[in-house]
């Protein structure tokens, strides 16, 4: 068997054995889904709103090259330095260079999946710069040494009890079964980090081309505090986050909180003007490609860039519910994650080629039904399979599909094959058992499929019904 598939199976196997995690995740997801549905039901015409958001995303992506130029011009005019980075390596080098140049030793960051994608924190730690995450969930996974398991709820896979033990061990906080108490304590523990931070790192939910504004939404107030405390400010922005006008940001801000957390609006929405400067006067915006241009130019890739990273697709995904973000070897979890991974520039070779991840989907269709910007996720997963898997199929696999199509394209061959199957089942049942084991059916406690003694077509004939077509 393909060794990448084996590695993927091994990673999943480790997560599947953790029943406690599954229970914690399952009940969190149930609540998240209920909140999302309640929030969606408050829309006057949800489908119209989704279509509008989808159209805006389509339109802005169409104009992306022009929008990037516009955005840059406005920022430069306002003395914000713009850095274009091609991939994670360049992004890391730029950040490390900035910290060296400004003698920075302490950073704080807000929650950003792009920072995670680029492994910025890793590069900074390696160069001796301390990074403290200021979003509580993000801080928890940082202390636990986990990757965020969800795009908007990083510690969704952990139970309150686990978090309590972790915070007690790592920060000496008093144990509690009450999530609010833990949150309050953790929040207080971040006070010094805010005060001492020399450089603040944030992502962006939207970047507005016409006026150079950056939009950030959050619930904890940590971004707001970060913006007013950091002496130097660096914002990382994926190039797909550009929209043309402030009005274009509205449908996104309308749907993102509803889809992500079931809120009408988040507690804080920051509109960061290009004129804003932190106390040192130094402000940087890093525009990141890291494979996005490849997606943009690919047959099935462009619409993936419409994604607003709300996490709704993973909230409803049955695979995600069973393996959590920890089961995905991709940089983003869930249906959107396995698709984006096909294009994001590969950094380290862990032996799991991206196309293998396309199997992390049972094609149930729940994600594409819920996606607020109407990305046809399930269909895109199948389309990517058609684009990539035939090239990667082994000789055996190719032969299986070839025989399948020959058999079903030829009535004579089919009934011959069907007869053979039944003869083999009767005279050499062990062969059937082994064959099914080989393809992976009767494993892990799933019983053998035994062909019916008489196939339906035969029974039908016996019943003397007319069967002429």
């Amino acid at each position, binding site marked *: 068997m393909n060794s990448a598939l084996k590695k993927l199976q091994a990673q999943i196997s480790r997560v599947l054995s953790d029943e406690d995690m599954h229970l914690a995740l399952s009940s969190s997801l149930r609540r998240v889904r209920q909140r999302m549905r309640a929030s969606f039901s408050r829309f006057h015409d949800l489908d119209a709103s989704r279509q509008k958001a989808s159209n805006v995303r389509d339109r802005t992506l169409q104009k992306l090259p022009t929008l990037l130029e516009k955005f840059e011009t406005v920022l430069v005019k306002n003395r914000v330095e713009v850095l274009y980075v091609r991939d994670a390596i360049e992004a890391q080098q730029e950040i490390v260079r900035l910290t060296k140049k400004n003698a920075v030793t302490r950073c704080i960051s807000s929650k950003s999946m792009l920072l995670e994608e680029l492994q910025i924190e890793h590069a900074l730690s390696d160069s001796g710069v301390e990074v403290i995450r200021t979003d509580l969930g993000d801080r928890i996974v940082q202390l636990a040494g986990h990757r965020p398991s969800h795009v908007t709820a990083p510690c969704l896979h952990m139970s309150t009890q686990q978090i309590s033990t972790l915070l007690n061990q790592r920060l000496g906080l008093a144990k509690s079964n009450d999530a609010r108490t833990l949150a309050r304590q953790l929040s207080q523990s971040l006070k010094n980090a805010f005060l001492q931070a020399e450089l603040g790192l944030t992502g962006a939910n939207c970047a507005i081309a016409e006026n150079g504004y950056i939009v950030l939404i959050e619930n904890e107030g940590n971004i707001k505090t970060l913006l007013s405390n950091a002496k130097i400010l660096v914002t990382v922005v994926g190039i797909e986050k550009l929209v043309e006008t402030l009005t274009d940001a509205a449908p996104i801000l309308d749907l993102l909180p509803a889809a992500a957390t079931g809120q009408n609006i988040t507690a804080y929405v920051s509109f960061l003007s290009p004129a804003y400067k932190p106390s040192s006067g130094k402000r940087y915006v890093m525009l990141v490609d890291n494979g996005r241009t490849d997606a943009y130019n690919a047959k099935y890739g462009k619409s993936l860039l419409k994604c607003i990273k709300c996490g709704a697709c993973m909230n409803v995904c049955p695979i995600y519910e069973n393996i959590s973000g920890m089961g995905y070897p991709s940089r983003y979890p869930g249906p959107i994650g396995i698709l984006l991974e096909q294009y994001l520039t590969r950094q380290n070779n862990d032996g799991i080629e991206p196309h293998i991840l396309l199997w992390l989907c*049972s094609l149930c269709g729940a994600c594409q039904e819920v996606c607020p910007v109407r990305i046809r996720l399930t269909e895109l997963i199948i389309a990517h399979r058609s684009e990539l898997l035939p090239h990667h199929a082994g000789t055996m696999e190719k032969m299986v599909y070839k025989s399948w*199509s020959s058999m*079903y*394209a030829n009535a004579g061959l089919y009934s011959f094959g069907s007869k053979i199957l039944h003869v083999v089942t009767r005279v050499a049942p062990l062969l059937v058992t082994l064959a099914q084991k080989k393809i992976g059916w009767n494993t892990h*406690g799933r019983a053998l499929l035994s062909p019916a003694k*008489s196939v339906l077509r035969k029974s039908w004939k016996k019943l003397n019904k007319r069967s002429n077509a």
Partner: protein
Amino acid sequence: MNVYLFIPCLVNEFLPQLGLAAVDLLERAGCRVIIPKKQRCCGQVGYNSGQWGEAAKVATTLIRELQDVTNPIIVPSASCTSMLRDRLGDLELADMDIQAWNHFRDNIFELSEFIRVYNLEEVIQPFPTLNRCAVFHASCHLLHNTNSLSVVHNLLKQVPQLRLHDEPALGACCGFGGIFSTKLPELSVKMGTRLLHRIKSAGCDTLIVGDVGCTLHLHSIAIGTGCEIQVLHYAQALTSRDTHRAVP
């Protein structure tokens, strides 16, 4: 009315009872059932695995077999229905085959869709008794690709002595997913096992599902793990064909 009953591959080979249950329902509705002699696979296996070239060969054969059909084509599987009705156009097919497909695709109905569209809810009753406590699990394609989920639910409510447990949280995939079930078998089986456990802890003895693959997958897990849950397709629950083994 003459109707064509499309026989999904898995039904023909492994679940003939399910096909016969569909025949029963259609005959109760006064239909004369015809099973197209040479009808084969809809191509879903190849399509879903990305083998569109091979799927196109299979689909072409099928389209040519069905091209002259003007009667309703009833499919007792929501995923085959979706493939036949919505997805064949993604494949590279000859123009004449696409035309032929467009000619009959509107006649394709998933079994419960047919019941709904032709208002057959009343005529197919009364249903035989089924003395069981069951959860109805909305199979993914029935949920997302047809709009007859509530029809099935309402019909099941009419089955004498069937106690339907209200488990609204059970909307999630059972873990079959076609080739997915063999590529990542541990995950696939775990998803099914977790679902069956929830049925068990709800105090039920039967799981009624809406598609063929789910029936096979969950039935095999129930047998393999010794979990005493009977898994039935809704067509079986509405007729007396509530076992998988017996042959006529």
